[in-house]
């Protein structure tokens, strides 16, 4: 598409955005892949429409505040990137645009405070834990609270698991086949610590020694995807230092963190650390990909057959192109029947902090996902992302169905340990 974006004025970020706009041919193949378009059915809530809106804002034809409500509704699931035949890097466009536009926004004071509260707690496990405990008190007062504060409470579990600090090193069992560094993730340490413990046990079983650098911080994906560029840069700089040791790979078990780490080269475009960030990103793997490449130690057969629906996290499937590996790992468990979820490519509505900021659309998508999962007749849901876990469990329970939602690594862990 033709544009008049002032690339010179905008610098490296401008080039990223202009490149994406140029690649779009407005064919509309993205429409059915977009969750908000499928819910709202409006051009401005579609990827093609949003690209047009961003172009208009960057060209100075449209006020940012006028376009913002529609751009804010984008989940950043990048389902459109999978569907796009022209190869528009939509994820790069929306992230960069949000970074460019956020300092120019005029948000109402309550919204600013709410966003800041999320950014100041979620990425810090200790603060998040304290906030979550406070939230459990709040759950009892929920009907009295203003509506925006009810969304986060709905997603909180009834009881928080104990805080279990991870060790600096988790040794391999038997012969060491590889040595990796591990990013522990923020929210999952508080909400589902077993994701990490199961991952460590499965890696150990496969001869992988795991370093958990204690100086690591949040990957910065939340900040980057909500336009908090300075915060994202600071978190990412810290991680470049914390993960500078010699390892075979840097692993994550959270889809959102993995794609966040792989976006460091985009974040550092035009910064001093650009090369370092590119080298770092090349080492990043989702744990499922790493195990599939390494060759999985065959798990023993399940005692009773189990029907498992695998849910593609958007930041694994769409953002990282990881679809086959987690499925292959699960299929390698004898007795496990893997089921595909109808409309599997559509986001569950979690999308980072989306279900906190756009609760209505998120809830529509969450319910749709839960119903599609139930249609498979599965006994268990497997996924590779903490956000999807929380969202899916919440909406399954709302429908009165409490089937377990497990991380792919938890299922492997269970298979190994009977």
């Amino acid at each position: 598409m033709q544009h008049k974006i002032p690339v010179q004025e905008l610098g490296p970020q401008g080039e990223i955005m202009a490149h994406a706009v140029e690649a779009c041919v407005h064919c509309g193949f993205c429409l059915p892949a977009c969750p908000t378009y499928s819910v709202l059915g409006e051009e401005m809530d579609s990827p093609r429409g949003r690209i047009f809106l961003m172009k208009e804002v960057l060209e100075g034809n449209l006020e940012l505040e006028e376009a913002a409500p529609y751009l804010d509704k984008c989940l950043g699931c990048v389902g459109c990137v999978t569907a796009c035949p022209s190869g528009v890097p939509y994820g790069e466009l929306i992230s960069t645009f949000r970074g460019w536009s956020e300092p120019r926004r005029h948000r109402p004071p309550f919204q600013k405070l709410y966003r800041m509260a999320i950014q100041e707690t979620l990425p810090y496990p200790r603060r998040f834990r304290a906030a979550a405990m406070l939230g459990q008190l709040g759950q009892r007062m929920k009907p009295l609270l203003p509506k925006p504060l009810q969304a986060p409470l709905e997603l909180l579990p009834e009881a928080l698991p104990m805080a279990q600090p991870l060790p600096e090193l988790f040794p391999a069992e038997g012969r060491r086949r590889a040595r990796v560094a591990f990013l522990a993730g923020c929210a999952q340490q508080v909400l589902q610590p077993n994701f990490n413990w199961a991952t460590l046990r499965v890696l150990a079983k496969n001869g992988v020694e795991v370093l958990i650098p204690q100086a690591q911080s949040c990957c910065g994906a939340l900040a980057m995807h909500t336009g908090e560029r300075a915060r994202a840069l600071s978190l990412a700089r810290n991680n470049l230092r914390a993960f500078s040791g010699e390892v075979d790979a840097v692993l994550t078990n959270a889809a959102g963190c993995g794609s966040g780490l792989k976006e460091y080269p985009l974040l550092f475009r035009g910064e001093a650390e650009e090369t370092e960030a590119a080298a770092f990103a090349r080492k990043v793997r989702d744990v499922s990909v790493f195990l599939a490449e390494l060759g999985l130690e065959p798990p023993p057969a399940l005692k009773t057959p189990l029907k498992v629906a695998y849910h593609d996290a958007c930041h694994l499937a769409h953002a990282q192109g990881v679809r086959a590996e987690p499925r292959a790992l699960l299929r390698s468990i004898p007795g496990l029947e893997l089921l595909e979820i109808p409309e599997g490519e559509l986001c569950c509505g979690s999308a980072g902090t989306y279900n906190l900021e756009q609760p209505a659309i998120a809830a529509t998508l969450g319910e749709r996902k839960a119903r599609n999962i139930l249609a498979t007749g599965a006994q268990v849901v497997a996924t590779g992302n903490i956000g999807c876990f929380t969202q899916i469990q919440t909406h399954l329970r709302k429908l009165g169905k409490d089937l377990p939602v497990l991380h792919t690594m938890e299922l492997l862990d269970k298979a190994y340990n009977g």
Partner: protein
Amino acid sequence: MTASATLAELLADLARILPKERFLTEAAQLAPYESDALTAFRARPCAVVLPQTSEEVVEIVRTCARHKVPFTARGSGTSLSGGSLPVEGGVVIGLNRLNRLLRLDPNERIAVVQPGHINLRVSDAAAPYGLYYAPDPSSQPVSTIGGNLAFNSGGAHCLKYGMTSNHVLGAKVVLPTGEVVELGGESLEGLGPDWLGLFVGSEGLMGIALEVTLRLLPKPEKYHTLLAAYDALEKAGDAVAAVVASGLLPGAMEIMDNLAIEAAEAAVHAGYPTAARALLIVELEGEAPQVEAEAEQLSRVIERSGPYEVRVARDAEERMKIWKGRKAAFSAVGRLSPDYIVQDGVVPRSKLGRALAEIERLSQEHGLRVANVFHAGDGNLHPLILYDGKVPGELERGERLAGEILRMCVRLGGTITGEHGVGMEKKEYMPEMFAEADLEAMRRIRRAVDPLELSNRGKMFPGGEAPAVTAHGAHPLEQAGVISRE
């Protein structure tokens, strides 16, 4: 009455029909509707309305008619000829919320759908009964039946099954004057002239379909999908003629040239032989014993046409991959070039080789690359002219080249559009194909149905506005479509 007063009254009346969230008038809401899939044209409507019922559509059309304001129906906005480009200052009627399947009768083999229903969803719904909807434009996962009807969409499998018009049995239509009429019925046998046929392919100039009755076909029992790679484009073209001459009628025959192969491969990793100068896809379909017999005959014909590699899809997944690459090819060309013009001309099948050679010559003469993806079986060419709009003069050169290709099609005995329609893009080429008397007869029919030329004004016919306007010269507001005279 002043134009702004008319506009204010129109908007007030529309606001009475629709709730605020389905009545869009703000800049950020209108901007994304300025173009369809042909971004060379942009026009801002005064409002976009999103009706959810047929009754609302009828009310909207009547309101526009009362205020004499032009309107454009829009589905998914995938037109490649600017067919759903708004009229500047007119109303866009977005029909994508009227997307329900109203009835599916497997015994009668019909489906009744609303205009915003997505093409591919018809086949999805019919699949449990072993049925499907045959017309398969490449945009079928996105484009709507209403739009398919308006542009008489084709697709790869038209060769055997015909265009949309061969698969529509009936339609309930709101005319531009606001009356609701039923055209056709539920069977192929009609009475009197083919009124429905007049409506199909009329590019939105004769009103808006509210309900469409489609014909469903039994799904072929077996497919045989063959991929042949050639070291010259003409060999592939000759192979198509040879297949037809041998008496075979494949479901589809498609050719992609080297540039198109490269783009499609990058987009969907279809596994195409990327070194090929041309790729021919031939698909046989039907009952198993027949397809098996034909497959042998086909392989003999193809062998004689001199391919350097031949592959046959071993299963449904391999077949889907071959088609996915072909169907993504247009948009995928966006990877090779920042801008391109999609052309859509037709030549007699026997002149395919000559047409391709001529396109190659024109491409060199104008110094622009041309990628070819086309429905070879029915001679429907889709040259994609690659240019960079940032380079001064390239767009103009591209447009000249596109024009010459269309003129060549007419010269060789073909037409200026196979399936994308005339829309905005090709209306100036209509006189190349039709005599003034032909065009005048068409205009008279249009005016009989739509005296004020409100429905999708400015499309298909060459030149500007309504005849009264062209005779007397238009007021700027008339040109903008805000006002019009009787």
